[in-house]
């Protein structure tokens, strides 16, 4: 095996984003990545579902058309889907932006339709997050949870179940486990050999 394969598995951007070639990003002009974010294979981000009805207070500027905004050091695992939530607004259907802050891990096979996700959030595998859910900082959502639409999850919650409910609190000593800097380093095209 050659040291440097001609075509890496990931596309690495100037800001350090690592986007898998096999990821499906629709409407890329409406997707904002903060940098150092990993997007794995078979991830789908629906940037095409941008806000179609402009609120007239903003003066109809088409520039603020972000559908999905993702912060730094996020990790979108294989097969997850980010989809902006949509609802009726003044009689017509429109999508609303989906905002994700820093250090957010999204497990494989999860579907995210939240309105906003804070920083240091861990979302397990096969989780469904309903439309317009608001997830604050330092939240852990266990595998297989279904977060109902419009649910607000306060900081330091551990959430599980169908429908999801708060089942515990993140302990004081567990804050560091949400850091995703080390995980970011383990993914990419030419990695240093992994320690045994």
């Amino acid at each position, binding site marked *: 095996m050659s040291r440097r394969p001609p075509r890496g598995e990931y596309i690495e951007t100037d800001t350090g984003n690592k986007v898998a070639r096999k990821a499906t990003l629709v409407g890329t002009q409406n997707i904002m990545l903060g940098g150092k974010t990993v997007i794995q294979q078979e991830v789908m981000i629906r940037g095409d579902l941008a806000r179609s009805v402009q609120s007239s207070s903003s003066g109809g500027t088409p520039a603020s058309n972000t559908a999905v905004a993702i912060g730094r050091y996020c990790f979108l695992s294989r097969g997850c889907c980010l989809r902006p939530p949509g609802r009726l607004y003044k009689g017509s259907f429109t999508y609303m932006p989906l905002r994700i802050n820093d250090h957010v891990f999204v497990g494989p096979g999860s579907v995210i339709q939240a309105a906003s996700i804070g920083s240091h959030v861990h979302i397990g595998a096969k989780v469904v997050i309903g439309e317009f859910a608001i997830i604050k900082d330092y939240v852990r959502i266990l595998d297989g949870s279904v977060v109902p639409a419009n649910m*607000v999850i*306060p900081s330091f919650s551990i959430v599980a179940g169908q*429908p999801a409910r708060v089942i515990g609190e993140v302990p004081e000593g567990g804050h*560091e486990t949400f850091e995703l800097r080390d995980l970011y380093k383990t993914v990419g095209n030419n990695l240093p050999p992994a320690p045994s």
Partner: protein
Amino acid sequence: MAPLTPYTFIQCPCSDPSTLARSGDVAPSDADDDDRTFDPRAPRANFSLYPLEYLLYCEDCHQIRCPRCVAEEIVTYYCPNCLFEVPSSNLKSEGNRCTRSCFQCPICIGPLSVTSLESQPDPNLLAAPDHTAAPQAGPYILTCSYCNWSSTEVGIRFDKPNSIHAQLAKLRNGGEVRLTAKERRERRKEALQSGPVGAPAASEGDNGDLDIETQFANLKTFYQTQLADSNPGGNGLSLGDPGFASPNSLSRIMSIYTGGSLHDKKAKSRVGTMREALDSDEGLQIADLDETDAIKMLHEEGCDGTLSTEQLRNQPPHLGGAHLHGRSRFTSELRPIPYLLRTKRSKRCPICRHIISKPEPKMQSTRFRIRLVAGSYIPSITVRPLNVPGGTPAAPPETLRPLQPAQFLLTFKNPIFETVRVTLATPATTPGRFASKVTVLCPQFQIDANTDVWDEALKDNDRDRRRRKGDDGPSQSSSSASAQLQGQGGTHQAEAGKIWERGRNWVSIVVEVVPASLRLDLLPLIAKLAGDGAEEKVNVSPLKEDEDLLEIPMFVRIEWEVEGGGDEVGAAPSRDREAKEKKELAYWCVLGLGRVGQA
């Protein structure tokens, strides 16, 4: 069964039997041979073992503190749904639930949203400023987007989309507006005025109308007047009347429930009986013992229509409810649940009362003013299997094979800025019926200080040389090392007394276990071999839950020196100024290695 990921639990000293000093609880046969060894299978052990993240550390006592032994103090109350802080003064008057418009579904406890019945639904009510004056009118309901329950199922509709809690308190199931005390009085007066013929009927109707809160208020005023009216004369014989009807016991009961304001010294001498409440104005409520409706409902809806215990437990007491008898027992009678408030809490050491964890009081902030977690004082221990036979290291076997030695790698990571010496001790065999043999190959070692990462980066070459102390060859890349590892032929083999691998602030050592066979027929044989005459007492009952789990109790002792004026830990400078102070900490921990296969 899902393969068990190895884990480490640490025992908090608060549950140490030596400090508890309750030897009577332990059966003497269990205790005499090895009374100092911690048994992770003891029923009590469940309550004292915590993952490292859950433990705090008191800097003044130099001891681990667990969630069970710390003293908590509430800093802030807030609603988990609308995230508004609730002042503690409101808490006393309005209770521990959100009094805004935050409700949970009584069926599935998902969040409820306010929806207009008439026009298009607008669940979030994010009304833009240029919203037309009255875009939505008409009744509003609470709907659950998860299970599609809506408050129309219990006949509750609201006139306004805000302050739902206050509106709901006035509404009964079915949408009937609850009478206030004033309205009730007026209605009664009207009934009396309408004529003597209509009066009895009206008061009859009132009887069923009395809700819990009003009934309590009526009873309270009734008994207060009774107490005031009761004859203060007639001393003596005060001991002989324990009945409920005596003013003596009544005033005592009332002082319990109404805060002692009624307690009257003179009341002690009162005796005799008082009359009881006679009508609904005096708080009389005739019990509705007719359960034919409930039985009919059961016939129609079956068990699905009844409440689960959890649903019943989640139901808040409804003071405006009709009566106490026959509390809502059907799902069709459930009311929306206002969100219980959540708290931010600070934690104190139970011994020295120093604060060891204190969050910012503001709800929005996730920062902590003080956060002394055990993870920044004691080494973390991670476990992973070593020498996976014939497989890739990525896929550990699901179960451990009995009577076959297995090796595990324990990695100790030092969080403090001093070099620590670690001494480990384990019992030779694990406690319990199925005794697995345990050998720690290197029970004593030193972990380097948690120095600056940059120091490490600068002398990176040095590290490679130090990586494998067991190797005598030149430094090698990890890929070849792992190949060698699988081959098992090379120089790199687990050796007694040698550290497996070490890094900047971590050390890996090897633990070898020989899992016991889970065969019950072998148990008497083993006992006979041991020859202590205990073969008659061997317990050959079938395998209990989690008895196949291989858990090793391990005693960890760490020693380090604090330099005078130096920092024990970067975040919290110690105040002692001695030249070199020796510190030590010792605790039990439990290593869960995996399940033993039933071979």
